[in-house]
């Protein structure tokens, strides 16, 4: 069992007062808050052993290198990947997907080839494929979303795979609907159709156990800042065989083995993809974040989020003029509750929430095809939960919703 009162004490920001109120932070799908253990680990690096990694032949550089590599080992273990050489650090999940689309995509996608994505993707898993399709004259297909269940439409999925796409890129958990796709099953189906698989794990890896070995996806991308770690660091994980065949995208120092005047050879994995001085403090802080998640336990975090989501949905049941978008089944839903209120624009909803000290997000959530074409809304409001949220905060959100209805004369 997750002891939320104990967890909350680890997050200093939850005690900060603004206009006499503590922050009720319900926007963790955008970015997560940081526990003191992460803040301290980053601060310790700056205070005690700040230095560049690799080639430094002195103690503090050796320590920094060790900590940086150790964070990759932790990331590999977290998702049950092989060695840390399969963990490429990027800026974030977006950067990781772009690396695949540009490097792997340029080599493996040709004219007339099909690329398959879904209607519930974040822009980060749409635009890189659009550009790749445009560069190569390839065809970009979408698996549609079933509006009655808010899950991927089975028939559309089968049709998409019938075109034998070269790659199927899909989100594990939708950042708007909270829908958790059956990554293992989808990967199996895609592989059967001859497609490589990229799994966008930005919203899943922080919130539940994700086993890449079991799922079998060729690529997985996720971000540190959504899982208690610093911003500016993310992961692209792929098998050694895949990474070996990919060309680096950014070149320069650190990613080479040797440089002659007219040609160079690449460094070993994963360094081949990490040109220039990397985000050392980001990596070290990310390692601390993974330590923290392991200490609490991802299974307990997942259970806590299910309980909180259930409590939120039950608290809002029967609220006139309120609409919730996402699956009813809690076993396939992450801790995300997207909603709209008749006559009130989501931005006004967010402003009214803010007056209660509650942080939520309103807009298209970087998923315009989903929000505009599937839900047919200009925008939605979204609450998203994490390990530090509790029922009292949900109660406050319910009060804020009642205030929105009062101001906009709803119900």
């Amino acid at each position, binding site marked *: 069992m997750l002891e939320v009162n104990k967890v909350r004490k680890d997050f200093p920001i939850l005690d900060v007062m603004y206009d006499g109120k503590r922050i009720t932070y319900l926007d963790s799908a955008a970015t997560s808050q940081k526990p003191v253990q992460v803040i301290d680990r980053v601060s310790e690096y700056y205070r005690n052993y700040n230095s560049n990694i690799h080639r430094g032949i002195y103690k503090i550089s050796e320590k920094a290198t060790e900590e940086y590599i150790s964070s990759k080992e932790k990331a590999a273990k977290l998702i049950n990947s092989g060695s840390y050489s399969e963990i490429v650090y990027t800026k974030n999940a977006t950067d990781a997907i772009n690396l695949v689309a540009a490097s792997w995509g340029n080599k493996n996608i040709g004219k007339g080839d099909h690329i398959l994505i879904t209607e519930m993707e974040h822009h980060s898993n749409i635009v890189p494929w659009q550009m790749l399709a445009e560069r190569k004259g390839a065809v970009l297909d979408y698996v549609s979303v079933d509006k009655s269940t808010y899950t991927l439409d089975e028939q559309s999925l089968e049709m998409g795979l019938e075109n034998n796409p070269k790659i199927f890129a899909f989100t594990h958990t939708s950042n708007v609907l909270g829908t958790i796709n059956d990554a293992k099953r989808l990967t199996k189906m895609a592989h059967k159709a001859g497609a490589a698989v990229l799994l966008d794990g930005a919203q899943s890896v922080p919130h539940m156990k994700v086993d890449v070995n079991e799922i079998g996806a060729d690529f997985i991308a996720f971000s540190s800042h959504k899982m208690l770690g610093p911003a500016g660091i993310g992961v692209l994980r792929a098998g050694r065989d895949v990474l070996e065949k990919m060309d680096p995208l950014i070149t320069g120092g650190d990613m080479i083995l040797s440089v002659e005047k007219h040609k160079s050879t690449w460094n070993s994995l994963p360094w081949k993809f990490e040109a220039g001085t990397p985000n050392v403090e980001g990596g070290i802080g990310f390692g601390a974040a993974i330590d923290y998640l392991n200490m609490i336990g991802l299974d307990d975090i997942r259970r806590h989020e299910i309980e909180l989501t259930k409590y939120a949905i039950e608290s809002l049941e029967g609220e006139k003029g309120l609409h919730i978008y996402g699956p009813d089944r809690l076993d396939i839903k992450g801790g995300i509750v997207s909603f709209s209120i008749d006559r*009130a*624009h*989501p*931005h*006004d909803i967010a*402003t009214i929430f803010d007056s209660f000290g509650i942080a939520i997000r309103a807009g298209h959530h970087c998923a315009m095809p989903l929000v505009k074409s599937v839900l047919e809304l200009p925008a939605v409001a979204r609450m998203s939960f994490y390990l530090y949220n509790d029922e009292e905060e949900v109660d406050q959100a319910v009060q804020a919703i009642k205030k929105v209805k009062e101001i906009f*004369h709803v119900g």
Partner: protein
Amino acid sequence: MALDIYAEEMISHYEHPHNKGKLEKPDIMLHENNPVCGDEMTVYCRIENGILKEVSFDGEGCAISVGTASMLTDFAKGKSLEEIERMDFNTIKELIGIDPGPARVKCATLALKTLKGCAFLYQHKDIDIATKEL
């Protein structure tokens, strides 16, 4: 800012906006949007001798963007193009009686930006509007 921005007047303009809809045969019209929130705004103007004779707006948006568009079009009607070009954020603050705060400033100024764009375009048809900060 709390909830002062949602005074009854603002909500009333949002629920029953003035000057809403398309204007037939406008002398100038301009479409603007606020990509972050998805607010859309088109302003239509009929101009005679440098005076804004008729003005309307159309689009989709939050209470603040629609409410201010309603109040601003009421206020701007009958004013000269020079007067419109001189309008700024202070005009909006005076109209709505409050500073909307940094998070909503784009919503509150979308109509003004579009209206000023119309005034500019009408007078400088030869200049690329993208090069001018309104």
